[in-house]
């Protein structure tokens, strides 16, 4: 079995006010070392179970994984290699925030075998970065980026956000042009979403956030797609753009609804039709692992129908869409025979395209993907 491996690092130097990820402001350094010990134990626990599996990608996400020292990161990757069968050419990604990288750390990352860097740039406008509560400025992004390039990273992603408070489309264009001028290999483009239980949400409710309206948001997104395609990026997933051969292999596992193992607090796993999540609270997570248990909080066995629906919803996020052949192979049933009505309706609405091999979103469907997804949902 081919697997993706995800490792979660729930610590940040500061918690951003919009962020609803499982991350916490780091209070004491010993938190990190006990967390790392727990990661090791969880990895060890899975090791015998996954003897027959190959790991084709590793993704270290957060939080801020690079809040760890170079050596700590190096050791974790080494430990994974020791405990799992990792493909020789595995894509190994680490997320980093500008300002948490230095030459020494980058050197160790490269030596550990990490071959892809995802930088949380978010914007090239210092004012907006400040509003977002980021600890870095534009110069930090550029410095970290070039440092990583010089020290050997040949595959770098930049995360960029849009539809930010008070952001105009002109602001956004400047940011995106700057990102492209750095010649990054990959860009992830997210519009700001206001999540409940975040500081932004409370501000938003009080009317203190001036967010771009739907039309402005649409214009930013549309402009970005056109601009990036013009610049040689492939819009291969709703929010993701890659130079040729630089798609994120790890994320493609998610979008193809393939199995993955998640290690760490709040990490999700999808194995043998089960999707489950570890305890989110790092303290609880560490406790469970140290008591010799798998730190699983809750999970669900997905019904066949749910797995089909998810396969379609996730697959439709990608440029490749959902292949009839793969669907048939996986579920032993023809996609048309089950979703004929939905597919036809969406084709009539010009949201979906169908050919002999696959279904995929139309250009319009990309902007209105939720309408398509809801159609397939039960």
């Amino acid at each position, binding site marked *: 079995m081919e697997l993706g491996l*995800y490792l979660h690092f729930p610590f940040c130097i500061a918690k951003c006010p919009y962020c609803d990820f499982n991350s916490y402001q780091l209070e004491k350094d010993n938190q990190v070392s006990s967390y790392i010990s727990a990661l090791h134990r969880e990895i060890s626990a899975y090791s015998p179970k996954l003897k027959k599996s190959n790991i084709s990608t590793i993704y270290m996400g957060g939080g801020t994984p690079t809040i760890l020292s170079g050596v700590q990161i190096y050791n974790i990757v080494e430990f994974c290699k020791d405990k799992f069968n990792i493909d020789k050419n595995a894509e190994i990604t680490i997320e980093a925030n500008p300002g948490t990288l230095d030459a020494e750390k980058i050197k160790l990352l490269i030596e550990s075998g990490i071959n892809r860097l995802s930088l949380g740039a978010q914007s090239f406008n210092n004012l907006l970065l400040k509003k977002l509560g980021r600890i870095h400025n534009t110069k930090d992004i550029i410095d970290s980026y070039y440092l990583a390039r010089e020290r050997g990273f040949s595959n770098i992603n930049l995360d960029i956000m849009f539809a930010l408070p008070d952001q105009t489309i002109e602001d956004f264009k400047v940011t995106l042009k700057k990102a492209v001028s750095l010649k990054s290999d990959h860009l*992830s483009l*997210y*519009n700001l*979403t206001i999540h409940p239980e975040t500081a932004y949400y409370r501000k938003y409710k009080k009317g203190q956030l001036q967010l771009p309206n*739907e*039309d402005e*948001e*649409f214009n930013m*997104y549309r402009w970005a797609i056109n601009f990036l395609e013009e610049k040689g990026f492939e819009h291969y997933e*709703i*929010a993701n753009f890659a130079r040729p051969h630089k798609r994120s292999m790890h*994320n493609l596992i*998610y*979008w193809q*609804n393939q199995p*993955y193992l*998640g290690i760490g607090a709040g*990490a*999700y*796993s*999808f194995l043998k039709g089960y*999707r489950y*999540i570890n305890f989110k609270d790092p303290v609880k997570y560490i406790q469970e692992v140290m008591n010799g248990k798998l730190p699983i909080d809750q999970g*669900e066995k997905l019904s066949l129908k*749910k797995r089909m*629906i*998810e396969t379609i*919803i*996730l697959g439709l*996020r990608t440029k490749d869409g959902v292949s009839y052949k793969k669907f048939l192979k996986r579920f032993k049933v023809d996609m048309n025979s089950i979703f004929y009505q939905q597919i036809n309706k969406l084709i009539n*609405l010009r949201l979906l395209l169908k050919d002999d091999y696959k279904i995929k979103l139309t250009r319009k469907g*990309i*902007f*209105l*993907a*939720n*309408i398509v*997804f*809801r159609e397939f*949902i*039960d």
Partner: protein
Amino acid sequence: MLKDYHCNIENIRNFSIIAHIDHGKSTIADRLLEYTGTISEREKRNQILDDMDIEREKGITIKSKAVRLYYHSKDGNEYILNLIDTPGHVDFSYEVSRSLAACEGALLIVDASQGVQAQTIANINLAIKSHLKIIPVINKIDLTTANPERVIKELQNISEIKEEEIILASAKEGIGTSNILEAIVNKIPPPEGSSSRPLRALIFDSVYNSYKGTIVYVRVVDGVITPGMIIQTMSNNLKYEVMEIGIFRPKMQPIKKLTAGDVGYIIAGFKNITDTQVGDTITDASNPSRESLPGYKKVTPLVFCSIYPVDNQEYENLKTALEKLKLNDSSLFSEAETSEALGFGFRCGFLGLLHMEIIQERLEREYDINLIATTPSVMYLVTKKNGDTIRISNPSSFPAKNEIENIKEPYVKVNIITPSKCIGGIMDLVQERRGSFKNMEYIDENIIRLDYDLPLNEIILDFYDKLKSISSGYASLDYELIGYQPSELAKVDILVNHQLVDALSFVVHKDKAYRLARKIVEKLKEIIPRQMYEVPLQATIEGKIIARETIKALKKDVLAKCYGGDITRKRKLLEKQKAGKKRMKKIGKVEIPQAAFLGILKID
């Protein structure tokens, strides 16, 4: 063990409790039940007699209830006290008048800090009309804001009530309970009537119970009723065999006979509730009485709206649910209708807005039906050019303008009691609602009573809320229908995506049509979510567009990111959104949320 004895008619007292809403009627009832041992310590809870969820949540009484108390008076005798609890809200005053007809006396409860309110006066008038002995009780004297002296003065200013008759009480603290009980025994006359005369029992309420069928609540005026007897309803001469009779303690408790003066229930295999009209007289089929008791005026609904199931397949469920509700609520009116926009549904008539709201809520909660309710309307009298006069409660069935000779709308006499300092704001409000001033009277130096005539249409929407906000909650309101007057009215139609949505049509005074139409389309623009294409909204009178707005096309609806386990959350979010869409009504290609049909209600 509960006693079940009969006593002389001289030792029976039948009484109601009447009060403005929130003046503590249900709490007084609770205390009387406790004091007389009608409920045990274990059964104690608030609002004992209110058993509908909705009554407990809103803290109001909707249905009348009866309960028998046994009381050992200070004079050494045992008495049967039949308490009939009544609703306090203006919408339900007909329930009150019905219950009063079964009594000889009434406790009039007045809040010691709020004093006399509109409903207080209305209740006193009702009680006097029914020739009841009034026992005035000033409640909540424990409150720091209580001012019983002021309230006593107010009561004397508005009625013949004497100071020495007034009982000071705090139901919360249990103060005054025994005084109240003694006053009931000593001041309220025993029922007149005789057990030896032929049976005459007044039906003052009826409820439907899925196990026992229709249960009628009666006050026996003359004669005796026992199980096995054949009885007859005097209005339609239908005969039934009595299966069970009983009293309320407060649960139904079967007994062997009910005699003149008693209050209780009868179960007699009544087929449907319409056979046992409230206000009808029950008599002995083998020895019928010649004369029936004075009945009630049939209640006429004042407020109308259409109710449709969101899902057309739920029509049958809705029909059944309405029938069941009508069994327990003779004031609810409904008849089948069809709407081009909404399909099959019902035009329903209610006593007022609260009544409407409660019925809608019960349909949704107790019967689990997703509803669309349209903006409430009143009944219009339309005289056509050909001389016909028709009654129209649904704006969508208004004839074309060129067929109409004239239109009359219902007017009500409104009685407002308010602190005098709010008078300016209230006058502005009433003026804006086309009201005409009739009278003003000081109840004391700070409280005044205002009388106006107003079109009912102007008060059914948000008049009460406005009144409350102008007076910081102090003003109270009571109204009664006084008749129909000619009016310059216009019917406004709403087109969504060029399609007339009949359920959105409304009738309004022509001077206000333009402004209201403008507000409605603006509101609809807010409420109706963007669709995949542009949706024009238009308001028209006789085909002429008087307002328009455009809902822009939905351009972007896409979840930004989705990785790993996120799919679980995303799927659940999409499932929730999809469920939300299912609650919307599809008209043409446009999905319209339920709230849109109540558009007018939401406008300031």
